[in-house]
């Protein structure tokens, strides 16, 4: 155990986390340099584009120090978005220390701070590492000063390196060994292992990543998962070393994998505690949360004969995503589809983009919604998250919507704009704390519905990236809710129906009508777009008809040329949803969610 170190690399986006991880892996010779593929830990295109890591990948680095001592250095990679903050916290809970990476040319940035605070909350040893020192624009002195002033850490403790050029890597290893404490725990106490991730393997089923705090686990053991009491028999345990390396056992303090006959990751819960059925631990590891989806949206294939292909794709997708839930759904206008639950808007966007790219699905997603509670006049209660099933307004006695407690951490200078944003989003009960000089924590109670669309992105914009935000569900509160429908040439666009607070209905309707006017192309006939609520039109826009598209000559006997042009346009139509005779481009459904300042 004394030769184990459990650590993570945390940093602002693009400060070089993945490159450093690559170098550490390369340095220990885990992978043949010839076979090595850069950024092996960041394998998804989507992640590369967004500059975020969605799925964590853990690796055990076998390191031999100068004095010949063998170490087991467990590098746990962490996702980087508020939607997945729970996963991040469980990954950090499995570590004893972090490398806080800072780009020497950019200096300390918003996520540098946010991640540092997160590490502090978990009582981790923090090693500042200044990266990219090879760049001409690197300003090491300024960065050291920022480490001192803004992070409150000792700049003399900061390491210098260039992950890209392979400079200073030895010193990183030395620091990990010297400054991150080895894990503490008892091998005689009952097994207590924290499940911080699970991945699906087509041949073996769910591969569980865990940190063993107490006890040991080996093949043949009967495990109990403390969140639900389910028991499973261990088939195999081992270490992650790019490929899985089976071991006779996972000892106290180690990080590795367990395969125990679970068919899909849906059976696992991040943050769960794994123990032995016959000799269970007294208490589970702290911090477990049963993660519930909070944002709901329906997915429909653009073309109804693609339904079974979409079902197939969702089933495959779910194998690797425990958080996504879905069930069959249908609507008069959109046909057969699925009602899905997501952890947040980013989760939703990721699912949408992966379904489209990896599984080639052309889909429409309805406007995301939260779960509302309605009390009807006849005394019954209904829970609604699909606006199409909202009860008739005349039957409603009262309505409630879910509220969150939002904690927003910002530098003092953004206090005004952030207050405004929260009040605009119907935030109430504001409180302020001063965790460190120059920083403010604003706490608001806010309706979840106001947060799921673009609250996080707006916050980032108005605080120039320095704001960070976390939230937890608190309760359901009474609210004046109305249903808003969008009509195009008199026909309702089911995918855009929404339950919204009465005070926000008009604003939202205007936004949708304006966005649709921009996104829907002109047709041969006029198009009237309307927002309707409670039987009244509360917003509208019009798209005028074009008068001419015809070309004079039909190319003599050359019909082929003309037809090919039409076929191309016909292909373009595939990404469009027909509502009546109006073709609505798929991106219109996404565009309606963006407020003007975001465009």
């Amino acid at each position, binding site marked *: 155990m004394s030769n184990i170190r459990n650590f993570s690399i945390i940093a602002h986006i693009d400060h070089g986390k993945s490159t450093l991880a690559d170098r550490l892996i390369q340095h220990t010779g885990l992978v043949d340099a010839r076979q090595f593929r850069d950024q092996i830990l960041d394998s998804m295109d989507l992640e590369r584009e967004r500059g975020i890591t969605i799925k964590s990948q853990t690796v055990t680095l076998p390191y031999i120090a100068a004095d010949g001592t063998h170490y087991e250095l467990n590098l746990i990679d962490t996702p980087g978005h508020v939607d997945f903050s729970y996963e991040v916290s469980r990954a950090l809970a499995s570590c004893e220390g972090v490398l806080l990476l800072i780009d020497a040319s950019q200096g300390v940035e918003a996520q540098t701070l946010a991640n540092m605070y997160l590490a502090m909350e978990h009582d981790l040893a923090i090693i500042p590492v200044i990266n990219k020192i090879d760049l001409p624009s690197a300003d090491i002195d300024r960065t050291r000063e920022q480490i001192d002033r803004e992070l409150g850490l000792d700049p003399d403790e900061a390491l210098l390196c260039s992950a890209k050029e392979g400079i200073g890597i030895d010193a990183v290893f030395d620091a990990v060994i010297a400054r991150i404490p080895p894990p503490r725990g008892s091998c005689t106490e009952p097994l207590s292992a924290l499940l911080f991730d699970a991945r699906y393997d087509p041949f073996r089923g769910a591969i569980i990543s865990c940190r063993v705090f107490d006890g040991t686990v080996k093949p043949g053991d009967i495990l109990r998962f403390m969140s639900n009491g389910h028991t499973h028999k261990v088939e195999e345990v081992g270490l992650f070393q790019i490929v899985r390396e089976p071991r006779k056992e996972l000892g106290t303090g180690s990080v590795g994998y367990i395969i125990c006959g679970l068919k899909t990751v849906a059976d696992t819960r991040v943050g769960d505690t794994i123990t032995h059925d016959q000799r269970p631990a007294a208490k589970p590891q702290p911090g477990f949360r049963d993660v519930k989806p909070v944002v709901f949206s329906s997915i429909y294939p653009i*073309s109804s004969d693609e339904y079974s292909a979409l079902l197939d794709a969702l089933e495959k997708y779910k194998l690797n995503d425990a958080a996504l839930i879905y069930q069959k759904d249908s609507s008069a206008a959109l046909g057969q589809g699925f009602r899905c639950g997501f952890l947040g808007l980013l989760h939703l966007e990721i699912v949408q983009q992966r379904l489209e790219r990896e599984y080639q699905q052309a889909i429409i997603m309805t406007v995301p919604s939260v779960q509302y509670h309605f009390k009807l006049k006849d005394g019954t209660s209904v829970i609604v998250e699909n606006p199409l099933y909202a009860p008739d307004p005349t039957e409603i006695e009262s309505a409630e919507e879910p509220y969150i407690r939002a904690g927003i951490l910002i530098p003092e200078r953004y206090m005004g704009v952030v207050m405004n944003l929260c009040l605009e989003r119907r935030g109430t009960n504001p409180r302020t704390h001063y965790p460190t000089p120059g920083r403010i924590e604003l706490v608001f109670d806010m309706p979840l519905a106001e947060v799921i669309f673009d609250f996080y992105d707006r916050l980032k914009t108005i605080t120039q990236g320095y704001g960070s935000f976390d939230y937890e569900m608190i309760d359901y509160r009474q609210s004046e809710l109305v249903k808003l429908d969008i009509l195009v*040439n008199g*026909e309702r666009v089911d995918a855009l129906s929404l339950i919204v607070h009465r005070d926000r209905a008009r604003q939202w309707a205007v936004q949708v009508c304006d966005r649709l006017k921009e996104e829907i192309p002109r*047709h*041969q*006939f*006029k198009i009237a777009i309307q927002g309707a609520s409670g039987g009244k039109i509360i917003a509208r826009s019009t798209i005028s*008809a*074009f*008068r*001419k*598209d*015809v*070309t*004079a*000559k*039909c190319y*003599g*006997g*050359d*019909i*082929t040329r*003309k*037809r090919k042009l*039409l*076929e191309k*346009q*016909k292909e373009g*139509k595939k990404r469009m949803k*027909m509502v*009546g*005779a109006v073709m609505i481009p798929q991106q219109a459904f996404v565009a309606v969610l963006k407020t003007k300042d975001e465009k």
Partner: protein
Amino acid sequence: MKSDSAAGLYVHVPFCKGKCPYCDFYSITDPGAERRWARALIREGQGYRADFSAFDSLYLGGGTPSVLPDDLLAELLAGLDALRPFASESERTIECNPNDLSPERIECYRSLGFNRISLGIQSLDDTELAFLGRRHRRSDTLRALDWVRERGPNNLGIDLIYGFAGHSIARWRSTLEAVPRYQPQHLSCYQLTLADRTPFGRAAATGQPRLATPEEQADLFLFTAEFLGERGFLHYEVSNFARDSTYRCRHNLKYWSRAPYLGLGPAAHSHRDGVRWWNPASVEAYCRAVEVTGSAAAGREQLSSEQIRLEDLALGFRTREGVALEQLDPGAPRTQAAIAELLEAGLATLAAGRLRPTTRGFLVADGLSLLFVA
């Protein structure tokens, strides 16, 4: 279209005296290959004897068929007539430029069996003719028209172009007004269209407009339809008008109804029973291919039923006949919705089981088919 419908024969004459800056049809200005081309053409035609049993229309287009020397034209016609029988009441058209004509030439065309002359007049205004790069002037045109009416076959077609930059209704009217005097059986009024690879197309791409604005074009189109409608012309296709239904161009109607037609010569297109094929747009390549293999087909496609449907819709909406309701997938909700919108917007009428475009519907004909496909 049934395969035993009579077929049309098209001959592409790829020679011109000069290239008009707007024209996208293939031709060269060097007449040196005329004889070689004519011989190859007959040989090519002979290769199709098994595929086409009879013709009831002949159309010489191009290029400028009227640049061919009379003797070569006679030789060509003799070869063509020998290919396959022509129905006794065949329509036989030759396209001409006004300044290629003379009374003798017109007589010659009659004697070769042409019963329809299509004159590429384009405009009766000399400034406009210069802008369009035409080599004739108003006086040539009026003189040629007189000759044709005097000595030519009864059936006269006039081709005009409008809608170029600066073309107001007043100016267009002054060309149109002069036409009825000659009592043409047929009028083609083409809105100027720009093709990328033409001088006009390139000029427009570098910011020198050659076209009237879309609004102006729409107005000009509607004016044309009204003007000619008032004078008794039948607006039977987007750009084509006929004195009455018997004077609709039989040959062109085959293009718009997927009837069979054989196209001989460089760049010519053919169609039969859902198969389309075409020749290369090069006199040299064409001649060589025919000389070596007897055939010049450079491309071919077998239409799927989906493609056939799309063509039927696209072509149908360009003609006054429109499209039969059963071709529109009448049960589908999108069909109902589309028809409702078109009727409401005055772009089509629904009668006797057919959806027919109105004149305003002609203006948007190109996109109508897409409303009815998935």
